[in-house]
């Protein structure tokens, strides 16, 4: 969760100053900041839980590529605005029910982080889904572009529901919800929005995965190089 937030936050922050219009530039930057804030809380907590405790900066800036377990979806390039907003929508539609279920986590700290993050994520989903609808049900050009975004990005979204041994252990302990409890909610949001946006879900979509196990797409290395540059050049630098 922390890596998803961190990497998507980093991706979105690359758009700061490059948004399609001033208002949307600020909106996307707000989302980026929210995600970096969520990443800070989550990485801080996981750093404390580690056998050899680490700070959130160490976790964010000093790991190797294969040590990041974010979904491949969130590291995908920003592309055009439709790509950015569709990637965001696929993620928000998953993150919101995840956070809602985490409110009941047996881990109080995690439930607290979820409560704070949920308010932000609700808005992110509203923002991204409204844009998907506007673009899909907009002009011929915007429809075609976001339909293409859907076809190229949906294949990365299924990895959000990946589970491994550790996940299953946490699910059994009542610390995190199961993927199968979130998937139907995500799927319904996806179908509702796609329908309202007059888009068509691609058929026979190949489902990518690997990010959750540290196997990333070719875009990840460049993202990390930029993100880690400062901390690696000036070790232990602080704001």
């Amino acid at each position, binding site marked *: 969760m922390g890596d998803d937030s961190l990497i998507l936050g980093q991706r979105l922050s690359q758009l700061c100053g490059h948004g399609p219009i001033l208002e949307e530039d*600020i*909106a996307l930057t707000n989302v980026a900041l929210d995600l970096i804030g969520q990443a800070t809380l989550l990485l801080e907590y996981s750093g404390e839980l580690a056998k050899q405790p680490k700070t959130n900066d160490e976790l964010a800036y000093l790991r190797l590529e294969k040590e990041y377990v974010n979904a491949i979806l969130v590291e995908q390039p920003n592309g055009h605005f439709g790509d950015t907003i569709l990637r965001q929508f696929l993620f928000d539609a998953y993150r919101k029910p995840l956070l809602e279920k985490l409110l009941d986590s047996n881990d109080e700290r995690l439930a607290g982080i979820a409560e704070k993050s949920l308010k932000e994520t609700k808005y992110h989903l509203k923002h991204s889904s409204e844009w998907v609808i506007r673009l899909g049900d907009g002009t011929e050009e915007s429809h075609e572009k976001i339909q293409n975004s859907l076809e190229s990005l949906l294949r990365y979204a299924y990895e959000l529901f990946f589970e491994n041994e550790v996940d299953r252990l946490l699910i059994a302990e009542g610390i995190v919800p199961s993927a199968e409890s979130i998937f139907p909610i995500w799927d319904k949001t996806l179908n509702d929005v796609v329908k309202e946006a007059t888009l068509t879900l691609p058929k026979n979509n190949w489902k990518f995965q690997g990010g959750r196990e540290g196997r990333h797409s070719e875009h990840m290395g460049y993202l990390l190089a930029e993100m880690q540059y400062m901390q690696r050049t000036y070790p232990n630098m602080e704001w």
Partner: protein
Amino acid sequence: MSESKGWPLWEVFVRSKQGLNHKHVGSLRASDATMAIKNARDVYTRRAEGISIWVVPSNNITASDPSEEDSLFEPSQTKVYRHPTFYDVPDGISHM
């Protein structure tokens, strides 16, 4: 910014807290009222400036004509008696 050319301009009013009035804070472009509210939230309330937002299409605002400034506003400048400053306020009355 060329994409926003076709988008109408909206005036944004924000109320900073309960009991106060909405104040004009600026303007922005949006394709409709829903988007205008969202944009206003992102552009004008990101530092916790408000708890309520109004947006009004700028072209629905009728403004006074600057060339009529003389007749509209100047006459009131010489009428100091319209300010309640000629009363003696008794001791012990605060907030006046």
